Protein backbone atom coordinates (compact mmCIF):
# COMPACT_ATOMS: atom_id res chain seq x y z
CA UNK A 1 0.00 0.00 0.00
CA UNK A 2 1.33 3.44 -0.95
CA UNK A 3 2.26 5.48 2.09
CA UNK A 4 3.96 8.57 0.69
CA UNK A 5 3.09 10.19 -2.61
CA UNK A 6 4.97 13.07 -4.19
CA UNK A 7 3.07 14.76 -6.98
CA UNK A 8 5.00 17.23 -9.16
CA UNK A 9 7.05 18.30 -6.15
CA UNK A 10 9.62 21.01 -6.84
CA UNK A 11 11.60 23.47 -4.79
CA UNK A 12 13.20 26.79 -5.58
CA UNK A 13 14.74 29.48 -3.41
CA UNK A 14 14.12 32.77 -5.20
CA UNK A 15 15.31 32.28 -8.76
CA UNK A 16 17.47 29.27 -7.91
CA UNK A 17 15.91 25.93 -8.80
CA UNK A 18 16.89 23.31 -6.23
CA UNK A 19 14.68 20.45 -7.41
CA UNK A 20 12.72 20.08 -10.61
CA UNK A 21 9.19 18.57 -10.54
CA UNK A 22 9.19 14.98 -9.29
CA UNK A 23 6.53 12.28 -9.06
CA UNK A 24 7.11 9.41 -6.66
CA UNK A 25 5.07 6.87 -4.75
CA UNK A 26 6.63 4.99 -1.84
CA UNK A 27 4.96 1.90 -0.43
CA UNK A 28 4.87 0.90 3.22
CA UNK A 29 7.70 -1.50 4.08
CA UNK A 30 9.94 -0.07 1.39
CA UNK A 31 13.46 1.26 1.64
CA UNK A 32 14.55 3.83 -0.91
CA UNK A 33 18.05 5.18 -1.39
CA UNK A 34 18.68 8.71 -2.63
CA UNK A 35 21.90 9.29 -4.53
CA UNK A 36 23.36 12.51 -5.85
CA UNK A 37 26.36 14.79 -5.76
CA UNK A 38 26.81 17.46 -3.11
CA UNK A 39 24.39 20.34 -3.67
CA UNK A 40 22.23 18.31 -6.05
CA UNK A 41 19.10 18.82 -3.94
CA UNK A 42 19.13 15.56 -1.94
CA UNK A 43 18.75 17.21 1.45
CA UNK A 44 16.00 19.49 0.18
CA UNK A 45 14.08 16.47 -1.09
CA UNK A 46 14.61 14.62 2.19
CA UNK A 47 13.34 17.61 4.15
CA UNK A 48 10.22 17.78 2.00
CA UNK A 49 9.57 14.04 2.42
CA UNK A 50 10.02 14.47 6.19
CA UNK A 51 7.49 17.31 6.09
CA UNK A 52 9.80 19.95 7.55
CA UNK A 53 10.05 21.93 4.35
CA UNK A 54 7.24 22.88 2.05
CA UNK A 55 7.55 22.35 -1.72
CA UNK A 56 7.37 25.45 -3.90
CA UNK A 57 4.94 23.55 -6.10
CA UNK A 58 3.28 20.15 -5.92
CA UNK A 59 2.19 18.14 -2.92
CA UNK A 60 3.58 15.51 -0.59
CA UNK A 61 0.76 13.31 0.71
CA UNK A 62 0.69 10.67 3.40
CA UNK A 63 3.32 12.06 5.77
CA UNK A 64 2.57 10.56 9.20
CA UNK A 65 2.08 12.87 12.17
CA UNK A 66 5.47 11.92 13.60
CA UNK A 67 8.53 11.27 11.47
CA UNK A 68 12.00 10.05 12.41
CA UNK A 69 14.29 12.52 10.69
CA UNK A 70 18.07 12.66 10.91
CA UNK A 71 19.33 15.88 9.32
CA UNK A 72 22.57 16.08 7.37
CA UNK A 73 24.21 17.86 10.30
CA UNK A 74 22.96 16.64 13.64
CA UNK A 75 23.36 19.45 16.19
CA UNK A 76 21.64 18.67 19.48
CA UNK A 77 22.05 20.89 22.57
CA UNK A 78 25.75 20.42 23.38
CA UNK A 79 25.40 20.91 27.14
CA UNK A 80 22.67 18.29 27.54
CA UNK A 81 23.59 14.73 28.51
CA UNK A 82 22.96 12.18 25.77
CA UNK A 83 20.67 10.00 27.92
CA UNK A 84 18.67 13.03 29.07
CA UNK A 85 18.34 14.15 25.46
CA UNK A 86 17.12 10.72 24.36
CA UNK A 87 14.63 10.62 27.23
CA UNK A 88 13.24 13.96 26.01
CA UNK A 89 13.01 12.46 22.52
CA UNK A 90 11.16 9.45 23.95
CA UNK A 91 8.67 11.70 25.77
CA UNK A 92 8.08 13.84 22.68
CA UNK A 93 7.67 10.64 20.66
CA UNK A 94 4.93 9.50 23.09
CA UNK A 95 6.92 6.68 24.70
CA UNK A 96 6.40 5.99 28.37
CA UNK A 97 9.44 6.30 30.65
CA UNK A 98 10.04 2.55 31.06
CA UNK A 99 9.82 1.77 27.34
CA UNK A 100 12.02 4.76 26.52
CA UNK A 101 14.68 3.62 29.00
CA UNK A 102 14.66 0.08 27.61
CA UNK A 103 14.87 1.31 24.02
CA UNK A 104 17.72 3.71 24.89
CA UNK A 105 19.69 0.89 26.53
CA UNK A 106 19.03 -1.41 23.59
CA UNK A 107 19.99 1.17 20.95
CA UNK A 108 23.11 2.20 22.89
CA UNK A 109 24.16 -1.44 22.87
CA UNK A 110 23.31 -2.07 19.21
CA UNK A 111 25.03 1.08 17.96
CA UNK A 112 27.97 0.81 20.37
CA UNK A 113 27.82 4.28 21.90
CA UNK A 114 31.09 4.78 23.81
CA UNK A 115 32.22 5.44 26.46
CA UNK A 116 28.65 5.80 27.75
CA UNK A 117 25.35 7.42 26.99
CA UNK A 118 25.72 9.59 30.12
CA UNK A 119 28.20 11.96 28.47
CA UNK A 120 27.33 15.49 27.48
CA UNK A 121 26.49 15.69 23.78
CA UNK A 122 29.14 18.34 23.20
CA UNK A 123 31.84 16.01 24.50
CA UNK A 124 31.01 13.11 22.21
CA UNK A 125 33.10 12.35 19.14
CA UNK A 126 31.55 12.97 15.72
CA UNK A 127 30.84 9.25 15.26
CA UNK A 128 29.22 8.84 18.65
CA UNK A 129 27.16 11.97 18.12
CA UNK A 130 25.93 10.48 14.85
CA UNK A 131 24.99 7.32 16.76
CA UNK A 132 22.92 9.44 19.16
CA UNK A 133 21.24 10.97 16.11
CA UNK A 134 20.45 7.49 14.81
CA UNK A 135 19.22 6.39 18.24
CA UNK A 136 16.95 9.42 18.30
CA UNK A 137 15.43 8.40 14.96
CA UNK A 138 14.92 4.74 15.85
CA UNK A 139 13.77 5.33 19.45
CA UNK A 140 10.05 5.62 18.71
CA UNK A 141 8.76 3.21 16.08
CA UNK A 142 8.03 5.64 13.26
CA UNK A 143 6.14 4.77 10.09
CA UNK A 144 8.41 7.08 8.11
CA UNK A 145 12.14 7.40 8.69
CA UNK A 146 14.24 9.89 6.75
CA UNK A 147 18.02 9.61 7.10
CA UNK A 148 20.14 12.28 5.45
CA UNK A 149 23.63 10.81 5.01
CA UNK A 150 23.35 8.59 8.10
CA UNK A 151 26.85 7.10 7.67
CA UNK A 152 28.68 10.44 7.84
CA UNK A 153 31.29 10.10 10.57
CA UNK A 154 30.04 6.62 11.45
CA UNK A 155 32.70 3.94 11.83
CA UNK A 156 32.46 1.04 9.36
CA UNK A 157 31.95 -1.37 12.22
CA UNK A 158 28.65 0.33 13.05
CA UNK A 159 27.27 0.07 9.51
CA UNK A 160 25.80 -3.42 9.95
CA UNK A 161 24.00 -2.20 13.07
CA UNK A 162 22.46 0.63 11.07
CA UNK A 163 21.55 -1.79 8.27
CA UNK A 164 19.86 -4.02 10.83
CA UNK A 165 17.88 -1.10 12.29
CA UNK A 166 16.76 -0.09 8.79
CA UNK A 167 15.90 -3.68 7.91
CA UNK A 168 13.86 -4.12 11.12
CA UNK A 169 11.97 -0.89 10.43
CA UNK A 170 11.20 -1.99 6.87
CA UNK A 171 10.05 -5.42 8.08
CA UNK A 172 7.49 -3.84 10.40
CA UNK A 173 6.11 -1.84 7.46
CA UNK A 174 7.90 1.49 7.84
CA UNK A 175 9.20 3.53 4.93
CA UNK A 176 12.90 4.31 5.13
CA UNK A 177 14.38 6.98 2.87
CA UNK A 178 18.13 7.43 3.15
CA UNK A 179 20.76 9.27 1.16
CA UNK A 180 23.96 7.33 0.58
CA UNK A 181 27.33 7.83 -1.10
CA UNK A 182 28.69 4.30 -0.73
CA UNK A 183 28.76 2.53 -4.11
CA UNK A 184 27.89 -0.88 -2.66
CA UNK A 185 24.85 0.44 -0.83
CA UNK A 186 23.69 2.30 -3.91
CA UNK A 187 23.99 -0.69 -6.21
CA UNK A 188 22.32 -3.02 -3.74
CA UNK A 189 19.39 -0.69 -3.07
CA UNK A 190 16.06 -2.18 -4.12
CA UNK A 191 14.95 1.25 -5.33
CA UNK A 192 17.16 4.18 -6.17
CA UNK A 193 16.32 7.85 -6.56
CA UNK A 194 19.16 9.45 -8.48
CA UNK A 195 19.40 13.24 -8.45
CA UNK A 196 21.56 14.97 -11.04
CA UNK A 197 21.37 18.59 -12.15
CA UNK A 198 18.44 19.12 -9.76
CA UNK A 199 16.43 16.48 -11.60
CA UNK A 200 15.45 13.27 -9.84
CA UNK A 201 15.11 9.96 -11.64
CA UNK A 202 13.59 6.89 -10.05
CA UNK A 203 15.37 3.65 -10.87
CA UNK A 204 13.31 0.59 -9.99
CA UNK A 205 14.92 -2.69 -8.99
CA UNK A 206 18.48 -1.48 -9.24
CA UNK A 207 19.63 -4.90 -8.23
CA UNK A 208 18.14 -6.41 -11.36
CA UNK A 209 20.31 -4.12 -13.43
CA UNK A 210 23.49 -5.14 -11.65
CA UNK A 211 23.93 -8.88 -11.60
CA UNK A 212 27.01 -10.70 -10.49
CA UNK A 213 28.58 -13.65 -12.24
CA UNK A 214 30.31 -16.28 -10.11
CA UNK A 215 32.44 -18.81 -11.95
CA UNK A 216 33.05 -21.71 -9.61
CA UNK A 217 35.23 -24.78 -10.01
CA UNK A 218 33.41 -27.95 -10.86
CA UNK A 219 33.04 -29.98 -7.74
CA UNK A 220 31.49 -33.12 -9.04
CA UNK A 221 31.22 -34.77 -5.65
CA UNK A 222 29.20 -31.79 -4.44
CA UNK A 223 27.21 -31.13 -7.58
CA UNK A 224 24.08 -32.55 -6.04
CA UNK A 225 24.33 -30.15 -3.16
CA UNK A 226 24.41 -27.05 -5.34
CA UNK A 227 20.69 -26.79 -6.04
CA UNK A 228 19.84 -27.37 -2.38
CA UNK A 229 22.45 -24.85 -1.28
CA UNK A 230 21.24 -22.17 -3.67
CA UNK A 231 17.55 -22.69 -2.94
CA UNK A 232 17.48 -19.90 -0.38
CA UNK A 233 18.72 -17.31 -2.91
CA UNK A 234 15.81 -15.88 -4.84
CA UNK A 235 17.77 -14.23 -7.64
CA UNK A 236 20.14 -17.08 -8.53
CA UNK A 237 20.35 -18.78 -11.93
CA UNK A 238 22.84 -21.56 -12.68
CA UNK A 239 24.35 -22.72 -15.93
CA UNK A 240 27.06 -25.17 -16.84
CA UNK A 241 29.72 -24.10 -19.25
CA UNK A 242 32.12 -26.31 -21.12
CA UNK A 243 34.98 -24.95 -23.21
CA UNK A 244 37.15 -27.72 -24.63
CA UNK A 245 38.17 -29.86 -21.68
CA UNK A 246 37.40 -27.11 -19.13
CA UNK A 247 34.13 -27.36 -17.35
CA UNK A 248 32.82 -24.72 -14.99
CA UNK A 249 29.63 -23.77 -13.23
CA UNK A 250 28.42 -20.20 -13.68
CA UNK A 251 26.07 -18.70 -11.13
CA UNK A 252 24.30 -15.42 -11.70
CA UNK A 253 22.83 -13.48 -8.76
CA UNK A 254 21.54 -10.00 -8.03
CA UNK A 255 24.16 -7.80 -6.42
CA UNK A 256 22.02 -7.58 -3.27
CA UNK A 257 22.70 -11.28 -2.67
CA UNK A 258 26.31 -11.43 -3.81
CA UNK A 259 27.96 -11.18 -0.38
CA UNK A 260 25.74 -13.80 1.16
CA UNK A 261 26.19 -16.09 -1.85
CA UNK A 262 29.96 -15.74 -1.78
CA UNK A 263 30.03 -16.57 1.92
CA UNK A 264 27.77 -19.57 1.34
CA UNK A 265 29.92 -20.93 -1.51
CA UNK A 266 33.16 -20.58 0.44
CA UNK A 267 31.68 -21.99 3.62
CA UNK A 268 30.54 -25.08 1.73
CA UNK A 269 33.96 -25.77 0.25
CA UNK A 270 33.43 -24.39 -3.23
CA UNK A 271 36.21 -22.48 -4.97
CA UNK A 272 35.28 -19.23 -6.67
CA UNK A 273 37.50 -18.81 -9.74
CA UNK A 274 36.10 -15.54 -11.01
CA UNK A 275 33.61 -12.92 -9.91
CA UNK A 276 32.31 -10.31 -12.30
CA UNK A 277 29.71 -7.55 -12.08
CA UNK A 278 27.33 -7.31 -15.00
CA UNK A 279 28.67 -4.54 -17.26
CA UNK A 280 32.24 -4.83 -15.94
CA UNK A 281 35.03 -5.93 -18.28
CA UNK A 282 35.92 -9.10 -16.47
Amino acid at each position, binding site marked *: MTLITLHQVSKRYGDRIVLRPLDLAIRGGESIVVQGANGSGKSTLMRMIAGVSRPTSGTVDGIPERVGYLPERFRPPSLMRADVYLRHVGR*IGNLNATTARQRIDSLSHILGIRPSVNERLGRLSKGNLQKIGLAQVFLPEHRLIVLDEPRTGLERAAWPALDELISNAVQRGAVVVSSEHDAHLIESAPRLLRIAANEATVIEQVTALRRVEFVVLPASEKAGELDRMLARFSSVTVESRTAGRDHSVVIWADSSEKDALLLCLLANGWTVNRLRMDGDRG
Partner: protein
Amino acid sequence: MGSVLRYTASRCALSQVWVPPWLVYLLIVAIAYPPNTPALGSLSLGAIVLLPISAWLCLATLNSESEQQSASMAALAGGVVTYRMLVLVSALCAALALVPFSILYALLHNAGPLPVGDVVAAVLPHGVSAAVGTTIGALVARPLIARVGFALVWSCLLVVALIAIPHLPPVRLMVELLESAHLHAGDVIVSGATTAATLVGAAIVWWASATFSRRRT
Protein backbone atom coordinates in the same frame (compact mmCIF):
# COMPACT_ATOMS: atom_id res chain seq x y z
CA MET B 1 2.65 19.38 24.37
CA GLY B 2 4.21 19.31 27.82
CA SER B 3 7.15 17.26 26.56
CA VAL B 4 8.21 19.95 24.08
CA LEU B 5 7.85 22.68 26.74
CA ARG B 6 9.96 20.58 29.09
CA TYR B 7 12.62 19.95 26.45
CA THR B 8 12.77 23.64 25.49
CA ALA B 9 12.98 24.75 29.11
CA SER B 10 15.73 22.21 29.75
CA ARG B 11 17.67 23.29 26.65
CA CYS B 12 17.35 26.99 27.49
CA ALA B 13 18.21 26.41 31.15
CA LEU B 14 21.41 24.57 30.21
CA SER B 15 22.52 27.15 27.68
CA GLN B 16 21.38 29.96 30.04
CA VAL B 17 19.87 31.99 27.20
CA TRP B 18 17.02 33.10 29.44
CA VAL B 19 19.32 34.40 32.18
CA PRO B 20 20.34 37.79 30.63
CA PRO B 21 16.78 38.98 29.85
CA TRP B 22 15.54 37.78 33.25
CA LEU B 23 18.39 39.58 35.03
CA VAL B 24 17.84 42.79 33.07
CA TYR B 25 14.13 42.75 33.92
CA LEU B 26 14.72 42.09 37.60
CA LEU B 27 17.35 44.82 37.73
CA ILE B 28 15.03 47.33 36.08
CA VAL B 29 12.25 46.42 38.49
CA ALA B 30 14.61 46.71 41.46
CA ILE B 31 16.00 50.07 40.39
CA ALA B 32 13.12 51.80 38.64
CA TYR B 33 10.12 51.02 40.87
CA PRO B 34 9.80 54.26 42.86
CA PRO B 35 9.48 53.78 46.64
CA ASN B 36 6.48 54.93 48.66
CA THR B 37 4.22 55.57 45.66
CA PRO B 38 1.05 53.74 44.58
CA ALA B 39 1.89 50.25 43.38
CA LEU B 40 -0.13 50.59 40.16
CA GLY B 41 2.30 53.23 38.87
CA SER B 42 5.22 50.85 39.33
CA LEU B 43 3.33 47.95 37.81
CA SER B 44 2.56 49.90 34.64
CA LEU B 45 6.31 50.37 34.24
CA GLY B 46 6.81 46.65 34.83
CA ALA B 47 4.26 45.84 32.12
CA ILE B 48 5.95 48.19 29.63
CA VAL B 49 9.44 46.79 30.31
CA LEU B 50 8.12 43.23 29.90
CA LEU B 51 7.38 43.96 26.22
CA PRO B 52 11.01 44.16 24.98
CA ILE B 53 12.11 41.56 27.54
CA SER B 54 9.62 38.98 26.26
CA ALA B 55 10.65 39.74 22.66
CA TRP B 56 14.26 39.13 23.72
CA LEU B 57 13.33 35.89 25.48
CA CYS B 58 11.47 34.68 22.41
CA LEU B 59 14.30 35.57 20.05
CA ALA B 60 16.80 33.82 22.33
CA THR B 61 14.60 30.72 22.59
CA LEU B 62 14.06 30.36 18.85
CA ASN B 63 17.52 31.35 17.65
CA SER B 64 19.41 29.22 20.16
CA GLU B 65 18.32 26.05 18.39
CA SER B 66 19.98 25.26 15.05
CA GLU B 67 17.77 24.99 12.00
CA GLN B 68 18.68 21.31 11.53
CA GLN B 69 17.93 20.43 15.14
CA SER B 70 14.69 22.36 15.03
CA ALA B 71 13.68 20.45 11.88
CA SER B 72 14.53 17.13 13.48
CA MET B 73 12.51 17.89 16.63
CA ALA B 74 9.65 19.31 14.56
CA ALA B 75 9.39 16.07 12.58
CA LEU B 76 9.28 14.16 15.85
CA ALA B 77 6.79 16.49 17.56
CA GLY B 78 4.14 16.51 14.84
CA GLY B 79 5.28 19.10 12.32
CA VAL B 80 7.01 22.44 11.99
CA VAL B 81 3.95 24.51 12.83
CA THR B 82 3.07 22.51 15.94
CA TYR B 83 6.67 22.49 17.18
CA ARG B 84 7.24 26.21 16.61
CA MET B 85 3.94 27.07 18.32
CA LEU B 86 5.00 25.00 21.34
CA VAL B 87 8.42 26.65 21.45
CA LEU B 88 6.65 30.02 21.38
CA VAL B 89 4.46 28.89 24.29
CA SER B 90 7.68 28.01 26.15
CA ALA B 91 9.06 31.51 25.48
CA LEU B 92 5.78 33.03 26.67
CA CYS B 93 5.97 30.99 29.87
CA ALA B 94 9.53 32.25 30.41
CA ALA B 95 8.23 35.82 30.12
CA LEU B 96 5.18 35.21 32.34
CA ALA B 97 7.48 33.75 35.01
CA LEU B 98 8.64 37.33 35.65
CA VAL B 99 5.15 38.69 36.42
CA PRO B 100 4.98 37.42 40.04
CA PHE B 101 8.32 39.11 40.76
CA SER B 102 7.05 42.40 39.36
CA ILE B 103 3.86 42.30 41.43
CA LEU B 104 5.58 41.06 44.57
CA TYR B 105 8.26 43.74 44.39
CA ALA B 106 5.65 46.46 43.82
CA LEU B 107 3.70 45.13 46.79
CA LEU B 108 6.72 45.14 49.10
CA HIS B 109 8.25 48.35 47.87
CA ASN B 110 5.27 50.68 47.71
CA ALA B 111 3.12 52.43 50.25
CA GLY B 112 -0.28 51.08 51.16
CA PRO B 113 -2.03 47.80 50.49
CA LEU B 114 -2.74 46.45 47.01
CA PRO B 115 -6.34 45.23 46.61
CA VAL B 116 -6.96 41.94 44.81
CA GLY B 117 -8.79 43.79 42.04
CA ASP B 118 -5.72 45.90 41.39
CA VAL B 119 -3.52 42.79 41.30
CA VAL B 120 -5.78 41.30 38.63
CA ALA B 121 -5.79 44.62 36.80
CA ALA B 122 -1.97 44.54 36.87
CA VAL B 123 -1.68 40.93 35.72
CA LEU B 124 -3.62 41.59 32.50
CA PRO B 125 -1.26 44.27 31.04
CA HIS B 126 1.72 42.12 32.02
CA GLY B 127 0.17 39.16 30.19
CA VAL B 128 -0.64 41.29 27.16
CA SER B 129 2.92 42.65 27.09
CA ALA B 130 4.37 39.15 27.32
CA ALA B 131 2.12 37.85 24.51
CA VAL B 132 2.84 40.82 22.23
CA GLY B 133 6.58 40.67 22.97
CA THR B 134 6.64 36.95 22.19
CA THR B 135 4.79 37.69 18.95
CA ILE B 136 7.41 40.28 18.00
CA GLY B 137 10.10 37.69 18.70
CA ALA B 138 8.27 35.16 16.53
CA LEU B 139 8.23 37.62 13.64
CA VAL B 140 11.89 38.59 13.79
CA ALA B 141 13.48 35.21 14.63
CA ARG B 142 15.12 32.84 12.16
CA PRO B 143 14.27 31.75 9.51
CA LEU B 144 12.02 34.75 8.90
CA ILE B 145 14.85 37.22 9.58
CA ALA B 146 18.20 35.48 9.34
CA ARG B 147 20.49 38.21 10.71
CA VAL B 148 20.40 39.14 14.38
CA GLY B 149 21.18 42.82 13.61
CA PHE B 150 18.09 43.22 11.44
CA ALA B 151 16.03 41.28 13.98
CA LEU B 152 17.17 43.73 16.67
CA VAL B 153 16.33 46.80 14.56
CA TRP B 154 12.87 45.50 13.66
CA SER B 155 12.02 44.45 17.19
CA CYS B 156 13.17 47.84 18.58
CA LEU B 157 11.04 49.68 16.04
CA LEU B 158 7.97 47.58 16.84
CA VAL B 159 8.48 47.87 20.60
CA VAL B 160 8.97 51.65 20.49
CA ALA B 161 5.90 52.10 18.27
CA LEU B 162 3.72 49.98 20.56
CA ILE B 163 4.84 51.88 23.65
CA ALA B 164 5.12 55.43 22.34
CA ILE B 165 1.89 55.93 20.36
CA PRO B 166 -0.80 57.11 22.83
CA HIS B 167 -3.92 54.94 23.25
CA LEU B 168 -2.55 52.36 20.79
CA PRO B 169 -3.89 48.92 21.64
CA PRO B 170 -2.97 46.59 23.06
CA VAL B 171 0.07 47.43 25.24
CA ARG B 172 -0.16 51.22 25.55
CA LEU B 173 -3.93 51.11 26.00
CA MET B 174 -3.70 48.46 28.74
CA VAL B 175 -1.01 50.43 30.56
CA GLU B 176 -3.07 53.63 30.37
CA LEU B 177 -6.04 51.77 31.83
CA LEU B 178 -3.84 50.44 34.63
CA GLU B 179 -2.50 53.91 35.39
CA SER B 180 -5.96 55.42 35.77
CA ALA B 181 -6.59 55.65 39.50
CA HIS B 182 -9.96 53.88 39.55
CA LEU B 183 -11.09 51.34 37.03
CA HIS B 184 -14.70 51.78 35.89
CA ALA B 185 -16.89 48.97 34.67
CA GLY B 186 -16.33 50.09 31.08
CA ASP B 187 -12.57 50.03 31.60
CA VAL B 188 -12.74 46.48 32.93
CA ILE B 189 -14.68 45.39 29.84
CA VAL B 190 -12.19 47.14 27.53
CA SER B 191 -9.31 45.61 29.45
CA GLY B 192 -10.74 42.09 29.28
CA ALA B 193 -11.71 42.39 25.62
CA THR B 194 -8.28 43.78 24.71
CA THR B 195 -6.57 40.91 26.51
CA ALA B 196 -8.74 38.31 24.79
CA ALA B 197 -8.27 39.93 21.38
CA THR B 198 -4.51 40.13 21.96
CA LEU B 199 -4.28 36.45 22.80
CA VAL B 200 -6.31 35.47 19.73
CA GLY B 201 -4.33 37.84 17.50
CA ALA B 202 -1.03 36.57 18.92
CA ALA B 203 -2.04 32.95 18.26
CA ILE B 204 -2.95 33.81 14.65
CA VAL B 205 0.37 35.62 14.07
CA TRP B 206 2.29 32.73 15.69
CA TRP B 207 0.56 30.25 13.40
CA ALA B 208 1.18 32.43 10.32
CA SER B 209 4.85 32.92 11.21
CA ALA B 210 5.28 29.19 11.81
CA THR B 211 3.65 28.35 8.48
CA PHE B 212 5.79 30.92 6.68
CA SER B 213 8.94 29.62 8.38
CA ARG B 214 8.22 26.13 6.95
CA ARG B 215 7.99 27.67 3.50
CA ARG B 216 11.33 29.47 3.97
CA THR B 217 13.30 26.36 4.94
